[in-house]
């Protein structure tokens, strides 16, 4: 299969390209960018006039709900959502049931995903067995099975010695540990930012210090052990400042935010909208603005969807009882574009956060359009508006704060390894 | 004002007072229905020199149009400061029309006790009854069309006046 994508605006942040250039694909790889190689004749021509052609998106966190939560979503449904959202590589957190703490589970997941021939799935292995925060997993074995990093997902490690050992052990092999900064005791029972909205609505609160105290521990232990850490889902201005300083000090840390947190604040909870029950909680407008600035100045390396499809039965509950999280794979691109437009961020810089920067954190060869690399490509219409409603979402989870709203930016084609795996009608 | 002119309310009230004087005794209980009925009842109570304190009713809680129009915004408190049980009562309203207000007032009165008798006094009987209700004492009978509303007003000096509006 030879494909010629023509007339599109090519944005390849890693290679510093933002120009009208054609892309030529053969045998699953990009064979040329710009002018056609000698003797190239395409079986398929994609006219990308007024479209943007960019690397397939790389999402640092998408819950596929397998194994264990198939009633909420399945690998099949969520992989379709991924490609419909232009995502060609995704990392999935280990909080499945059972958690991804054994090589067999990881191999099975990789195998099932590969057979679907859609997005590439990169499992993040459990740092501790059953995510209990007590015994380390067989990290090296898990990496052999396909894990790209280790994390506790949202489960806490209350024993700092276990964390210290986990970091030391990971550093031994050069593995990265992904950590969510939230002190479980300070966040106990909390469901919303400890701010004026939680006070008004009487919602149990999670203070910013739940994030910062945990973060301080992580940063100090990273410095102590030299382990590479990646902080998942920062939420506060103070947290961002700490990471900024840590980077200045040379501590090997990267971080991401969930795309919702670049836009929403505690105010959006409105009258107890359970779709705004997220982890970490939506914080104040000031925090949201700090996250946006930190994205722009590079303190925050990447944006992820934090895709969490949730069944209506456990979402349409009183706010505190509703399961937290939002569907995100299909909103990652439009919401990133929205941030870029509102914050006057050039498109290449914005797209880097969901392509090349995310790939760098995953340490995978993806997120760029260099000749010779796998043809994972997203073609999207940056001006096309669409309404977020259940029927418009491929994901089985229809839970999003954006339900009923219009967003701009729609994926036209998604290519994985040179095959058109998704094409909008 | 369109249509025929209305009689003077003060004269009607005088006539009503005269009609009632021979029919009331020292133990008769007088009860005005808010708002116009209370104005009339206050004057009757004074001029008839009744000993039993004046009662007032706001029948909002008993009206049969609640389903249609909801609760009236300005509900007054009912006050029946005497024993109803076994007493001869006279209900007082300003304008007697469909009879539904009187029905509601009698329902409410029965919640206070079983009166020996209830009679009705109205300043104006305008006809148009929808229930079997009749006034024993009426200041005047005025035929009014369904699209007309007869209203009692009271000015700052306490002077009463009847006005007619066309809907």
């Amino acid at each position, binding site marked *: 299969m030879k494909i010629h994508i023509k007339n599109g605006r090519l944005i390849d942040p890693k290679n510093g390209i933002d120009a009208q250039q054609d892309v030529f694909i053969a045998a699953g790889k990009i064979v040329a960018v710009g002018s056609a190689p000698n003797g190239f004749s395409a079986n398929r021509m994609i006219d990308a006039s007024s479209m943007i052609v960019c690397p397939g998106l790389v999402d640092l966190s998408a819950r596929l709900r397998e194994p264990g939560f198939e009633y909420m979503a399945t690998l099949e449904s969520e992989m379709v959502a991924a490609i419909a959202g232009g995502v060609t590589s995704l990392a999935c957190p280990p909080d499945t049931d059972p958690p991804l703490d054994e090589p067999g589970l990881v191999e099975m997941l990789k195998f099932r995903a590969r057979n679907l021939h859609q997005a590439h799935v990169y499992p993040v292995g459990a740092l501790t067995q059953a995510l209990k925060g007590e015994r380390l997993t067989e990290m090296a074995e898990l990496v052999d099975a396909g894990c790209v990093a280790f994390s506790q997902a949202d489960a806490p490690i209350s024993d700092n010695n276990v964390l210290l050992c986990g970091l030391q052990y990971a550093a031994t092999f050069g593995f990265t540990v992904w950590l969510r900064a939230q002190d479980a005791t300070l966040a106990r029972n909390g469901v919303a930012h*400890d*701010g*004026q909205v*939680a*006070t*008004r*609505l*009487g*919602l*149990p*609160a999670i*203070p910013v210090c739940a994030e910062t105290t945990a973060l301080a521990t992580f940063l100090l232990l990273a410095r102590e052990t030299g382990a590479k850490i990646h902080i998942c889902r920062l939420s506060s201005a103070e947290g961002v400042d700490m990471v900024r300083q840590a980077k200045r000090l040379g501590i090997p840390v990267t971080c991401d935010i969930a795309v919702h947190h670049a*836009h*929403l*604040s505690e*105010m*959006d909870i*409105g*009258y*107890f*909208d*359970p779709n705004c029950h997220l982890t970490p909680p939506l914080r104040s407008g000031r925090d949201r603005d700090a996250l946006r600035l930190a994205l722009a100045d590079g303190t925050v390396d990447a944006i992820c969807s934090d895709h969490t499809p949730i069944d209506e*039965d456990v979402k*349409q*509950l*009183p*706010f*505190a*009882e509703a399961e937290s999280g939002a569907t995100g794979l299909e909103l990652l691109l439009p919401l990133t574009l929205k941030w870029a437009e509102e914050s006057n961020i050039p498109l290449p810089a914005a797209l880097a956060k969901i392509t090349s920067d995310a790939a760098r954190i995953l340490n995978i060869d993806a997120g760029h359009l260099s000749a010779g690399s796998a043809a994972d490509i997203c073609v999207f219409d940056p001006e096309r508006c669409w309404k977020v409603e259940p029927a418009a979402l491929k994901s089985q989870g229809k839970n999003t*704060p954006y339900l009923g*709203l219009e967003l701009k930016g729609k994926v036209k084609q998604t290519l994985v390894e040179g095959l058109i795996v998704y094409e909008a009608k | 004002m369109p249509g025929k002119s209305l009689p003077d309310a003060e004269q009607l009230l005088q006539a009503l007072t005269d009609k009632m004087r021979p029919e009331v005794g020292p133990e008769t209980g007088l009860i005005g229905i808010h708002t116009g009925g209370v104005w009339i009842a206050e004057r009757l109570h004074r001029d008839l020199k009744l000993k039993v304190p004046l009662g007032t009713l*706001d029948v*909002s*809680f*008993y009206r049969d149009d*609640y389903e249609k*129009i*909801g*609760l009236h*915004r*300005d*509900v*007054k*408190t*009912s*006050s*029946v400061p005497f024993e109803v049980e076994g007493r001869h009562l006279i209900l007082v309203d300003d304008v007697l029309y469909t009879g539904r207000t009187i029905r509601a007032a009698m*329902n*409410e009165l*029965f*919640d*206070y*006790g079983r009166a020996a008798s209830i009679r009705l006094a109205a300043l104006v009987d305008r006809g148009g009854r929808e229930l079997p209700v009749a006034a024993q004492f009426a200041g005047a009978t005025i035929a009014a069309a369904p699209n007309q509303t007869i209203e009692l007003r009271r000015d700052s000096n306490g002077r009463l006046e009847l006005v007619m509006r066309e809907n």
Partner: protein
Amino acid sequence: MWLNPSNPQLNKNGELHHLLTLEGLPEAILWQILDTAKSFVGVTQREVKKVPLLRGKAVFNLFFEPSTRTRTTFEIAAKRLSADVINLAINQSSQSKGESVLDTVANLAAMQADMFIVRHAASGAPHLISRHVAPEIHIINAGDGRHAHPTQGLLDMFTIRHYKQDFSSLRVAIIGDILHSRVARSQIHALTTLGCPEIRVIGPKTLLPSHVEKLGVHVYHDMRNGLKDVDVVMMLRLQSERMQGALLPSAQEFYKYYGLTEDKLALARPDAIVLHPGPMNRGVEIDSSVADGGQSVILPQVTFGIGIRMAVMSILAGN
């Protein structure tokens, strides 16, 4: 903020359709409820304490959290309006069987309910239910989590108005566990809307929500300063599970520093009144001599509560 839904309590004519919280309710509606309640208090003082307004209506008491007192006052109020009252204590077992709040409500709505009185341990549950019931059904929040207890707030306002006539020159203190109190939140919103110029909250830092001052109140930690020259003293109930642990060391210490005793009450104005939403912990948040003393209006509060609930139900059912 991109999402600004219209007030879910009002219908398109701006009339009260559900009573979920006092926050954001127009002042005129609060006065309407208070005025109407006055007439109903008149009814409750008669021989026959019943009026036929809600005859034929079905009022469901839907209590996901047990509360005999509140449920009873709603039941009395509904019966005095001649409604049919159905009491449902939704115990944890039917919830744990997997039936969601919304399933429960859908089932009951199919039984031709006209009104749901909802008590739930989670803040916002009545809002959730109101979004999912048929438009002709009315919801009254009878207390949700820490969020709101609007009829309690209204009966407190009724009580204050009864004794003080007017809110425009009052100094009011709310004392105790503000953090966990839905009553305090409703009181604060109502007092603010009705024009009370000075609202104080008094309690230790562990029992005050962060940003409480954004609700328009003055914060005091020392009860003796906070009570100085106040006209109204509103005590809150301290839940027993909070009396020892990280929030408070002991009930004794709480009583010593935040319990309302005669000598502390003497710092308030001599004609100050004392309110408590009940049930009281005597010797924890309030001394018996104060609870039963001449300045206490705790029992009248209960009587007024029936009138308030009758007023709310009849206004809702009529809109």
